């Protein structure tokens, strides 16, 4: 390791900012290729219908339309969109093909494609497509799906994509022994990532070369390449996925979607590059939704509130197909239900139900947001029933440092080794309580001042990060001294370039301005793991560190050759190799790069590395507190103050960590109060524009304090990093739900359902005469 560490741990300004600030970023819709055409997609207006006939004649006749096609016109076997994560048995019956043929199963499912010279013409032509649909009854609720009167996929014979039970200890016995039990149903609203940039792709398909180049890829490019190559019967080397600047991911962007196949098919049909950009209405029906969990939770405790066991049924509404993220949402909701507490006995029936809605995938903190809401709301109910302070109840039950590491058991099928690593959960809660002045609040819960009811809610969380395949990095020093990092990780706007450059600069002891970072595209590195599960800093960061260490060794080797001396007397420091001879000779990286080059074309001052954490996850944890004021007359909730603590091991760039926490928290406020994919009973999405689907804006902000703790560095990587991307969001609904309940304690109103809206609150208040 280098002598000084001037960059890691400092709020280094972002390297990527300049192009974004000057309007010179290159997002997918900014790219124009010669002779490029544009495609638009005719999407199902029905949630569930048989397709009797499709007539594209009128659409094709529009001047400027180059081609139009539907499933019947495609001259290849339509591949199934693969399962990438949580691929449980049974899901294989519910996979999606890129375009509907005989039946549509959600509003927004692709039915036909128009390719035209520009988007205005393509959209004109969409209006002229005639499809004869025979509508079927729509399944829009999990209970209805479980009843199975209408089947979304007839061949499967049921709407239950899979179902399993997981647990540890003897839950039934715990409930028999318990002094106290309670059972509640909680629902988390269907909402989604909704990044500001909609999805988009440009395909260049040249069957003669052969080559499929897909611009606009991100997140898991090497996985996607493998599957696209197979789908189009190409060698992997003939498929290039090119990453552009990306306007936000949050879990949804970069998975394989129908369009990842349709855009290449379109390009292959017309022999020209084809661009597709999702409009916002499409985005709200075509891009994965998330959350949408119904959880029946039971808890058993002693009369002092010590948890003996939990039992639950988690029902995930999967939408119409199982997409790449498989069972992540509901399986993680189940796995994280016991949370950071000592729950000796736990049993959970997990059900994955298929409905006529947009398919579900991950959104920041998948399953955690939901699990924390259910559990933390339940704990506050226990505290009230047993007359124990909510913070005290949590401190009684939180795992202590001595309980860790803790093997949580096989709470996701196949995940037998999941282990909470070391940490100090009570410390994170206690620091939160101090910061928010909790001791002063005990008597003020429910105080009404000027018609506004005040409440403070708290919640604890634990959250895994950095799972998945190894990550790669290559560092090259050019003869002009420029240092280039290439990594298989992607950037979705979170500052990956800056973070990687910080690590490289420290481990090579060089100025950060010399470093450039290229990421993601399959043309840059031979393989890569990708960007999800808060893994970039941990996985790519450690790959960069290892590459830098290898590059130091390589520099010493080259210097030994150059000086014709033994490497053992040489030392790498301050960006150069030093010899302890009389002249104190020095060879800088620039000189070594030039020397390497002079030795032959295959020589370079470069180093490769791959970091593999061998499935050993580090867990971030912490606590949230929300202070709310509720206008009792209108049901409007204002979050006045929000405090969170999050143990992240070590902060690579504190300002960027802060940005993740605050950004996540505000997204969480959206998920708690606003974001809601509302469907009617026919399966029509009623919130299909930003006028109806509401996102948090700058006037919805509390006074925020986000404290990143660095007390418990990860043992699984030498720099000690844990993920920092999701701790801001995962406990928001939990803390806010508790705060609202406390504020309204005079009326005994319990928040069991999200989102918390003024009309729902007013209805609850009206029902009790308030």
């Amino acid at each position, binding site marked *: 390791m280098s002598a000084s560490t001037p960059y890691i741990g400092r709020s280094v300004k972002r390297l990527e900012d300049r192009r*974004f600030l000057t309007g010179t970023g290159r997002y997918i819709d900014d790219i124009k290729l010669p002779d490029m055409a544009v495609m638009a997609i005719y999407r199902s207006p029905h949630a569930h219908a048989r397709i009797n006939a499709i007539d594209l004649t009128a659409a094709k006749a529009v001047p400027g339309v180059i081609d139009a096609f539907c499933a019947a016109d495609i001259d290849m076997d339509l591949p199934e969109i693969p399962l990438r994560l949580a691929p449980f048995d049974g899901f294989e019956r519910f996979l999606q093909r890129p375009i509907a043929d005989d039946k549509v199963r959600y509003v927004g499912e692709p039915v036909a494609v128009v390719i035209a010279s520009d988007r205005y013409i393509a959209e004109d032509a969409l209006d002229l497509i005639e499809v004869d649909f025979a509508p079927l009854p729509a399944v829009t609720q999990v209970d209805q799906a479980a009843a199975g009167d209408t089947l979304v996929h007839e061949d499967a014979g049921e709407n239950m994509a899979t179902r399993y039970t997981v647990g540890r200890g003897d839950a039934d016995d715990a409930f028999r022994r318990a002094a106290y039990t309670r059972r509640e149903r909680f629902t988390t609203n269907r909402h989604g990532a909704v990044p500001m940039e909609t999805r988009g792709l440009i395909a260049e398909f040249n069957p003669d070369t052969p080559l499929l180049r897909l611009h606009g890829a991100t997140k898991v490019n090497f996985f996607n390449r493998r599957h696209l190559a197979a789908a189009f019967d190409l060698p992997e080397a003939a498929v290039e996925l090119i990453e552009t*600047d990306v306007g936000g991911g949050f879990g949804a962007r970069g998975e394989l979607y129908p369009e990842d196949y349709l855009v290449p098919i379109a390009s292959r049909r017309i022999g020209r590059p084809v661009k597709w950009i999702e409009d916002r209405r499409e985005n709200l029906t075509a891009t994965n939704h998330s959350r949408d969990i119904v959880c029946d939770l039971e808890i058993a405790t002693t009369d002092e509130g010590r948890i003996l066991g939990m039992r639950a049924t988690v029902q995930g509404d999967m939408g119409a197909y199982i997409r790449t993220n498989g069972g992540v949402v509901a399986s993680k909701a189940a796995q994280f239900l016991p949370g950071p507490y000592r729950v000796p006995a736990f049993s959970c029936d997990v059900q994955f139900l298929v409905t006529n809605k947009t398919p579900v995938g991950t959104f920041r903190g998948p399953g955690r947001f939901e699990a924390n809401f259910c559990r933390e709301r339940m704990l506050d109910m226990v505290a009230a029933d047993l007359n124990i302070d909510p913070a005290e109840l949590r401190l009684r039950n939180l795992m202590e440092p001595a309980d860790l590491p803790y093997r949580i058991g096989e709470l996701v099928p196949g995940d037998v080794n999941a282990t909470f690593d070391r940490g100090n959960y009570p410390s994170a809660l206690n620091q939160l309580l101090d910061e928010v002045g909790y001791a002063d609040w005990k008597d003020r819960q429910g105080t009404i001042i000027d018609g506004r009811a005040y409440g403070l809610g708290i919640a604890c969380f634990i959250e895994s990060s950095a799972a998945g395949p190894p990550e790669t990095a290559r560092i090259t020093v050019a003869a002009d001294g420029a240092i280039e990092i290439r990594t298989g990780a992607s950037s979705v706007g979170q500052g990956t370039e800056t973070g990687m450059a910080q690590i490289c600069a420290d481990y090579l002891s060089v100025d950060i301005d010399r470093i450039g970072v290229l990421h993601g595209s399959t043309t840059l590195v031979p393989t890569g793991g990708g960007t999800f599960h808060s893994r970039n800093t941990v996985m790519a960061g450690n790959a960069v560190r290892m590459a830098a260490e290898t590059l130091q060794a390589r520099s010493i080797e080259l210097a030994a050759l150059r000086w014709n001396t033994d490497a053992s007397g040489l030392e790498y420091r301050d960006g150069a190799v030093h010899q302890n001879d009389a002249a104190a000779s020095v060879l800088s990286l620039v000189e070594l790069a030039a020397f390497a080059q002079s030795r032959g074309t295959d020589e370079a001052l470069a180093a490769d590395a791959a970091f593999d954490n061998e499935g050993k996850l580090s867990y971030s944890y912490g606590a949230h507190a929300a202070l709310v004021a509720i206008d009792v007359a209108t049901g409007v909730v204002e979050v006045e103050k929000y405090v969170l603590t999050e143990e992240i091991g070590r902060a690579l760039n504190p300002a960027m960590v802060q940005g993740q926490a605050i950004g996540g928290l505000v997204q969480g406020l959206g998920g708690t109060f606003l974001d809601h994919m509302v469907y009617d009973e026919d399966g029509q999405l009623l919130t299909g524009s930003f006028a109806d689907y509401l996102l948090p*804006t700058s006037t919805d902000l509390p006074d925020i304090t986000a404290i990143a703790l660095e007390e418990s560095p990860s043992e699984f990587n030498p720099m000690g990093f844990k993920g920092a991307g999701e701790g801001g969001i995962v406990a928001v609904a939990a803390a806010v739900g508790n705060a609202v309940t406390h504020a309204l304690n005079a009326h005994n109103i319990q928040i069991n359902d999200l989102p918390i809206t003024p009309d729902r609150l007013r209805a609850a208040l009206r029902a009790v005469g308030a």
Partner: protein
Amino acid sequence: MTAQHSVTLNVNGTAHDCEVEARMTLADCLREKLDLTGTHLGCEHGVCGACTVIVDGAAVRSCLMFAVQAQGVQITTVEGLADGDTLSDLQQAFHDNFALQCGFCTPGFLTTAESVLAENPSPTRAEVQSAISGNICRCTGYVPIIDAILDTAKRRREGGQ
């Protein structure tokens, strides 16, 4: 197809002659005809503010205006804010405050903030919050954006502008 109309757009101090359909939005014209792709489209229905440009001093959603309506007006887009290689004070403040992550919303915030500051050089925090409440950012949680705008206002006042 539909009839083409000639329009001269004055953008960032340069006049551009374009042939456009009457229905072409100003946003599409800037992006497709003039290759000024810094103006972004987040919704195309007037809610997100990503497409905001400055038209004769006022913040305007270029997805809600037709190119043919822009004849004779002065348009400033994000590409017109920096002075050559030097970032404007507002751009610099966004950089210094970590007021962007993915950067997709940033052009709209910069142009909105410029028109806000021109109208009200001494905004309160609440006034800034309300002035940018029609722009959506999914990444930052807004706090650093508000800080950056307030910083710029302060520096401009101190600089005697």
